[in-house]
């Protein structure tokens, strides 16, 4: 994986999306998990599970998006070359 993108609110998707590389991964966190209700494209997508559950989104996550624990989050950081954080 080249770059891990963290997206922490829906509005941040607009900036993130055009800069995705097919080798990248995206982790939706916090309010960014609202984006997980739809199919997204351009990279591999994950959504942070506690944020999904708190917001009542567990049954609304699109099947193409995998939920991730905090341990998974750490493993994503391990396996990428750099992390880019998108907010606002």
């Amino acid at each position, binding site marked *: 994986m080249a770059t891990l993108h963290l997206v922490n609110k829906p509005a941040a998707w607009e900036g993130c999306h055009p800069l995705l590389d097919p080798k990248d991964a995206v982790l939706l966190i916090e*309010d960014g998990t609202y984006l997980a209700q739809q199919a997204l494209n351009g990279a591999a997508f994950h959504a942070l599970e*506690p*944020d999904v*559950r708190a917001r*009542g989104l*567990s049954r609304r996550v699109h099947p193409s998006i995998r939920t991730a624990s905090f341990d998974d989050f750490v493993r994503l950081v391990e396996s990428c070359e750099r992390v880019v954080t998108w907010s606002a």
Partner: protein
Amino acid sequence: MAKRILFLLNRTPYGASHALEAIEAILVAGVLDQKVSVLFTGAGLYQLLSDQDGGALGGRTVGKMLGALPEYGVTDLFACRPSAERLGLGDANLCLPVAWLDHAEQRRLINRQDIVTS
């Protein structure tokens, strides 16, 4: 003297402390016998989504707190229908019954108020 006060809720429930703190103010307005209305609009609709579990983040559940509104005398709960359609939300997904308003009805709701806050 009781005033007609509209609380406009347009923030997500867990993105910041804003939603929880705003609900606390609404409860107090209800206790103090004001004529309180609440309008959920935009991302504020997510406050009403069912199956929330604030415990997953070590805190309170916003949807449950909203459920206490009627006990505090706050029963005029409105929601923006166009926002709900944009977000793909309907009655079946919500934890609380609300009256759906289109934009013209929301304009009339605002025009009936003494005070609007958020």
